[in-house]
């Protein structure tokens, strides 16, 4: 499958580890990547706050460039904020012919809204890609308990995204499972991380991150997986600040590494920590993955397999009992013979 990648402004800065790990996995899983030519900033939260026109025009210009170069090839946006903005422009252009024409006038170029917009998780939901990844997992993260964190922009509002559920999506879990890790069920997977409000309103945003980290740990997770550079930075980089505040309050630290889901895939597929960008993580992430790889694999059986195993065990037991009875029957006879002599 080929995608027109929209890198977004964080791809070479705060999202560098996401770019690196995703590229590694894409190279080894047969995902082909073009780059949207002459792309520009999607506007983040500022464009759509300023006006509907700016909110649509900034992402639409890049979508139009992608369309001119690659036709209906899906546009891939690794950042959840970019994904949300690109999808908003796409949906607006698709739902009204008037709006599509207005958008063309705003950006000064044709835009037919032919190409779909997908997020970083989507390519791995294609069965062939999932199979390739699974076959390439040479260093499985045996039973690593992972809390998959989606944040808000990937899943809401329903009118813009194409996710399986607004509050309990499962697609990232399906992808993370390919590594041999075990996703946990938890309640904060689609809670907002505070996004860029950590700049304009830091005091009100700290509790959001703290609750997400605490919920993941309460659910038994050893690690958190994300699919957005901003979510990842807010959880990973701010964990230390939150623990400093907790220490001042006499509370135990919330100690949990945060990875891009692509870092887990890359590492399980044999990437070095540098190749998977894990050396860039704020909360050290190397030793947990190395340890998980040495764990004994506990094979989870299906109910049918469990029943078959029970029957096989019972048969074996019965056979052993029969053999023992036969031996016991033979033994006293032999004993008598011996006594006669």
């Amino acid at each position: 499958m080929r995608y027109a990648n929209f890198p977004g402004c964080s791809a070479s800065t705060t999202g560098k580890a996401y770019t690196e790990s995703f590229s590694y996995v894409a190279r080894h899983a047969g995902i082909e990547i073009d780059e949207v030519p002459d792309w520009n900033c999607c506007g983040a939260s500022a464009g759509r706050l300023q006006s509907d026109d700016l909110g649509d025009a900034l992402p639409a210009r890049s979508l139009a460039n992608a369309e001119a170069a690659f036709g209906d090839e899906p546009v891939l946006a690794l950042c959840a904020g970019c994904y949300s903005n690109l999808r908003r422009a796409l949906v607006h252009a698709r739902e009204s012919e008037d709006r599509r024409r207005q958008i063309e006038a705003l950006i000064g170029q044709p835009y037919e809204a032919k190409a779909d917009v997908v997020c970083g998780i989507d390519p791995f939901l294609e069965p062939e890609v999932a199979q390739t990844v699974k076959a390439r997992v040479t260093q499985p993260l045996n039973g690593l308990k992972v809390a998959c964190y989606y944040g808000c922009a990937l899943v809401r509002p329903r009118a813009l995204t194409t996710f399986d559920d607004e509050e309990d999506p499962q697609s990232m879990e399906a992808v993370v499972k390919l590594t041999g890790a075990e996703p946990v069920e938890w309640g904060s997977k689609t809670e907002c991380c505070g996004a860029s409000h950590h700049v304009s309103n830091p005091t009100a945003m700290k509790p959001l991150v703290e609750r997400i980290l605490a919920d993941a740990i309460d659910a038994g997770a050893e690690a958190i997986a994300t699919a957005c550079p901003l979510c990842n930075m807010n959880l990973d980089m701010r964990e230390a600040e939150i623990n400093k505040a907790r220490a001042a309050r006499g509370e135990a630290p919330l100690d949990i590494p945060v990875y891009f889901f692509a870092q887990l895939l890359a590492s399980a597929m044999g990437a070095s920590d540098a190749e998977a960008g894990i050396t860039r993580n704020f909360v050290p992430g190397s030793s947990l993955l190395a340890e998980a790889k040495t764990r004994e694999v506990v094979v989870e059986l299906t109910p049918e397999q469990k029943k078959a195993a029970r029957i096989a065990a019972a048969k074996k037991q019965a056979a052993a009992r029969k053999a023992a009875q036969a031996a016991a029957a033979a033994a006293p006879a032999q004993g008598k013979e011996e006594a006669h002599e």
Partner: protein
Amino acid sequence: MGFCNLSELEEAASGPLSEIAAASGVDVKECYQCGKCAAGCPVAASADVDCRGVIRLLQIGDVDRVLKLQMPWLCLSCGVCLARCPQNIDLPALNTAICRYEMKRGIAAEREGEAFMNIFLDNVEAKGVSDETMLAMRYNLQTGHLFQDVANSPRMLSRGLLSGDGYKPAGAPDVKRMVHDIRKGEGGAE
């Protein structure tokens, strides 16, 4: 608790209220105050008035008070309220409309929110992309939060997360013109 006639009260504040309603597509009378929005809102605990309260104030026509609230600026547009609202009321759109109404008149209730938006858009207008380092520096200088995230800068630098690859779109002048025109209210669309 007194009795109030919503229709009469709404007329009294019809100017600003109808402008905000039209911009957001929200009819505040549709809300029956069940509170599912505020129950799921991640910022309700730190807000001066929660999102249900914002709608209530608009219902009783107290627009002046709404225009002084921090809540519309705190809203993250995370969409939990809309996902759970039995009346499908688009609260993020309502909050955005309130912020825009204030900014248009130079009365933004939270100067940090407006400053962040403007500095971000200045950046995009100038370069076609957002330079996060420049954004943080200019924001801290302009708002007087000089030391915010300063402790994180060396941590980001040592992980190679600050420098970037220096990408600038070839069509940056086109982006500049487009952003400039829309911000000045001269966009191509009516």
